[in-house]
């Protein structure tokens, strides 16, 4: 008697929740617009490779060689050059945000090149935007090789030949990197935010007390309320998946039997976290801020979605392990790009299991405690 669940009661709550969602199509449309916007932004706009970076050039030499150097820079496609009358003006362009880099060629550049000396050109980089500095430095290496080849074909032939093969993403396509990770972000938004808000709303309006005074058991309420959001999350995940494959041509090299359990585990983890937040806060504004700070922002910033976890200090490499998103992104990228199976992804799956267990335990404990008068 005590723990007998009645499906009819669960279904009743479930139907009520579905009506609730469908009755308010505007909210649903907003909820679905979010993933769409994210996918479009990441699919169409975010580009990690630099192109047409504004570079202020002061050519104080004005010789065949100095013009040749600026031509090499300009034709590389990485930089968009603007001419400045003096070195000071070039610096001013950096300060006034009109350029991210400056090239200053001194008077003797051509003469030095002609007389087999080392010809120096000064490059100034804007360190206030250091996401680009590393890449610019890399490109400059390449430009330097081309320039040497142009001016001094006999000297520059280096006998060290380095060939790089990029595995999993041979053409360094930015989309292949971001879109599989987006799956995690989209699910995080839909599961944590929506569940924490709807359940907090029941508390806020007082209808939760009403529900609890009926013969429905707490567990039945929870299941009935969460299942529609599970379906919603799965729907959004399918949508992102299809868009990734068909729209952006991201390859899928692994098995769907690996990805799907991963998605399910991940959604339940975040649904439970949403539930936990709503039980703790019982107020929509508070629930929202808490979901944002413990769910969404860490999922975007600390999960390895953009910023690699390997670059973080040791403490954060351990700390980020409590984020389900970190593990799910490994599963998602692994199945999409490197074709990993359960053997390679054993750790992420195990971690998701453990996190699910802990979250469910915390949520039920707090939920029960709340029911006592």
């Amino acid at each position, binding site marked *: 008697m005590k723990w007998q669940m009645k499906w009819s009661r669960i279904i009743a709550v479930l139907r009520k929740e579905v009506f609730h969602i469908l009755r308010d199509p505007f909210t649903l449309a907003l*909820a679905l617009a979010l993933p769409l916007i994210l996918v479009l932004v990441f699919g169409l706009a975010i580009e990690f490779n630099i192109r047409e970076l504004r570079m202020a050039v002061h050519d104080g030499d004005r010789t065949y060689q100095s013009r040749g150097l600026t031509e090499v820079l300009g034709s590389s496609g990485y930089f968009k050059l603007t001419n400045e009358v003096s070195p000071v003006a070039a610096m001013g362009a950096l300060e006034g945000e009109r350029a991210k880099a400056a090239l200053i060629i001194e008077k003797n550049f051509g003469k030095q090149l002609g007389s087999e000396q080392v010809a120096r050109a*000064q490059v*100034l*980089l804007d360190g206030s935007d*250091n996401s680009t500095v590393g890449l610019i430095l890399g490109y400059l290496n390449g430009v330097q090789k081309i320039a040497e080849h142009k001016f001094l074909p006999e000297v520059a032939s280096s006998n060290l030949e380095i060939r790089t093969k990029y595995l999993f993403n041979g053409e360094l396509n930015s989309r292949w990197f971001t879109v599989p990770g987006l799956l995690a972000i989209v699910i995080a938004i839909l599961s944590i935010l929506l569940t924490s808000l709807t359940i907090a709303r029941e508390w806020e309006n007082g209808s939760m007390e009403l529900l609890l005074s009926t013969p429905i058991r707490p567990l039945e309420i929870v299941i009935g309320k969460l299942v529609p959001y599970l379906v919603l999350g799965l729907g959004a995940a399918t949508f992102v998946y299809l868009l990734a494959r068909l729209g952006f041509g991201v390859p899928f090299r692994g098995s769907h039997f690996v990805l799907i359990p991963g998605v399910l585990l991940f959604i339940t983890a975040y649904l439970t976290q949403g539930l936990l937040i709503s039980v703790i806060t019982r107020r929509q504004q508070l629930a929202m801020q808490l979901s944002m700070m413990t769910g969404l922002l860490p999922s975007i910033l600390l999960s390895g979605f953009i910023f690699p976890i390997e670059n973080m200090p040791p403490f954060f490499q351990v700390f980020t392990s409590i984020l389900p998103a970190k593990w799910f992104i490994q599963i998602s990228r692994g199945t999409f790009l490197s074709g990993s199976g359960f053997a390679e992804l054993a750790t992420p799956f195990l971690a998701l299991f453990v996190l699910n267990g802990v979250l469910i335990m915390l949520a039920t404990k707090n939920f029960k405690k709340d029911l006592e008068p």
Partner: protein
Amino acid sequence: MKVTLLGFMKKEFAQLLRDKRMRIILFIMPVIQLMLFGFALSNEVKNIRLAAVFPLSDRISHEVLSKAFGSGWFKPARTTSTRDPSEWIRADQADVVLVAPPEGITQALQRGNARIQLLIDAKNVVRAQQIEGYLTAILQTTALDFIPVAAAPQGGVVFETRVLYNPELITSYFMVPGVMSMILCVITVIMTSMAIAREREVGTFEMLIAAPISIREILLGKTVPYIALGMLDAPVIILFATAVFGVPLRGSLLLLLLLTFVFVCTTVAVGTLISTISKTQQQAMLGGFIFLLPAVLFSGLMFPIENMPIYMRVFGYCNPLYYYNSAVRNIMLKGGDPSAVLVNVLILAAFAAGLIWISAKRFRLTLG
């Protein structure tokens, strides 16, 4: 009129700060977030797991490895024996594998050309390119050390590179001002839109209309406290940015606060606008996100706008966060170039004026 307005604002503040947990969220969480993201996020590549295949007698390869591990960027990969080095990357045991020619780099160089292959895990596009850059540089300098001096190339083109404003490329200098704009934006937009939507949802809005208080007073009473909230949070964040992360404040603090004030006015106006199209808190929150996520992504905080295709850059240029971010970095790191900052402040002020006008108009409309 002044008394009612004051009373209204007082009520709004009380409602906002009544809950102890809300006070924590509003004042402690921004600091925690700043610490979290400021310390954790880094653009500097570290912990690259490097494996190498080379004959034991190859001196250059040994030298390259010890230089790589000594640099702090690389660490040895733990690999299981297998014939195919790319298997190590597939099994996620290594990030990069250096494959030397069968006779070793040293011998190959003595005979003429040495062909080296680098296998790099390119799941992360940026990281892959940085790994290639680091390793190539190490290989080239090491090989130069082993080539007899007479054969070393003469002449050539050298770029003398200098990184200005942040010569050590400390990531937090770049990240913290960006995170600051994000936190301010999240707090003000979402709190404002939800606070107004809440009155609507609970039904107290009807009461407000019936009360002897003008629409303008309602609007001011609902928005001024959130502008104040943003302006209270800003100095806390600036203090932590400078004291804990050592981000320099090279420009004027007053200018920075003025800029922040204009920015907060803009974001509160956005929040008000969102609230006018939403009936419930849930809608307000989702609407807030639909503004926030693209705004953060197009702000230059994580991805340079300049890399985007032209038609997408437009969104960046319509984004108040972009101008705020750019101006904050300019003031803090570059000392505040007067014309650049002024342009940004003016653009932000134009945004604020336009948004306040539209949202006030819509606010009246939805009340009527």
